């Protein structure tokens, strides 16, 4: 029998609370696991928000440090990934709000100079890997061109892997609106990718 979603969520949260507590106790394995599990999320949020190069490295590393320092405040009310994602959104917004950094940083996601995912499935042949990389780059560019209400929701759902309810809470919109924006965002992406 499949597990009920709320049971799965509660179980995931219990595991997250355990990880947070082990990190706080200074267990090296837990800290490594924390950085490994959520580092890519923090880094990807920065990249998809238009940060490139050293800025992306700095802000994403700072997000991880802030998240680690804030772990004692984590109570397991949401998944740790949701928690890190929300924190990452706030830190990226702070970064762009800072007066000396109002300009759009070099290396937008649509740039060919910006490398996409650096780690790929090792089982793929080099030519298949190249095709996948190209496809991923096209998709990332298309997402970067989505209009804002849809873009934020699409990123939160597919990159942050947040649930509709979690997105609704973060963006303070009804769940129905989240679904409408997801649906519209997907349609726009399909149109864009179909045309190119």
């Amino acid at each position, binding site marked *: 029998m*499949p*597990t009920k*979603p709320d049971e*799965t*969520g509660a179980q995931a949260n219990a595991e997250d609370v355990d990880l947070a507590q082990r*990190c*706080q*106790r*200074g267990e090296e394995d837990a*800290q*490594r696991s924390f*950085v*490994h599990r959520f*580092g*890519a*999320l923090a*880094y*990807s949020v920065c*990249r*998809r928000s238009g940060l490139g190069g050293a800025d992306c*490295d700095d802000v*994403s*590393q700072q997000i*991880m*440090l802030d998240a*680690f*320092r*804030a*772990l*004692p*405040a984590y109570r397991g009310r949401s998944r740790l990934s949701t928690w890190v994602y929300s924190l990452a959104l706030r830190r990226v917004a702070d970064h762009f709000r800072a007066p000396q950094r109002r300009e759009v940083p070099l290396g937008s996601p649509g740039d060919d100079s910006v490398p*996409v*995912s*650096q*780690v790929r499935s090792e089982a793929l042949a080099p030519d298949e890997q190249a095709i*996948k990389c190209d*496809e*991923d*780059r096209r*998709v*990332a560019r298309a*997402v970067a061109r989505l209009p804002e209400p849809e873009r934020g929701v*699409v*990123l939160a*759902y*597919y*990159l942050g*892997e947040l*649930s*509709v309810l979690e997105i609704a809470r973060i963006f303070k919109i009804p769940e129905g609106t*989240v*679904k409408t924006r*997801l*649906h519209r965002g*997907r349609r726009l*992406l*399909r149109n864009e990718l179909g045309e190119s």
Partner: protein
Amino acid sequence: MTCNHFLDRLYDDPVRAAFRGESAVPPDMASHMLDCRSCQAAYHAAADDDRLLTRALREVPSPAWHGAVLKRLPLRSPVLRRPWIATINESLAWGVLAIAASNVLLNEHSAIGYVVAFSTGSAAALLRPTRTKPVLLLRRSLRWV
């Protein structure tokens, strides 16, 4: 189930888990798909998008990035200050425990003996350097006393 209801549920967690092969398609949706070609197509399109978008949007930082973060992490997260009421509860509990121990082990029944035992227990609770596992276990069990 109507087609609108079906399309509305495409973004729910159990359906996302089904896209990824982590669970079965919810039975009512599976039976609807058998009768409705367009919803079947919508399901497969959503599953394709889930696969493509989660892969394309996620970037993995370099090992150097990981190394830099791990190097900058403090050894431990700062521990939140405990609420004062918890500290008082704990020292009271340890004091009472010390009185009981002095009663049983030393056969001490004088008022001065109680005061000394209580003070020693409370002081031990306040001054102990770290929270070790046995202490945590004892605290947990004391909660129910």
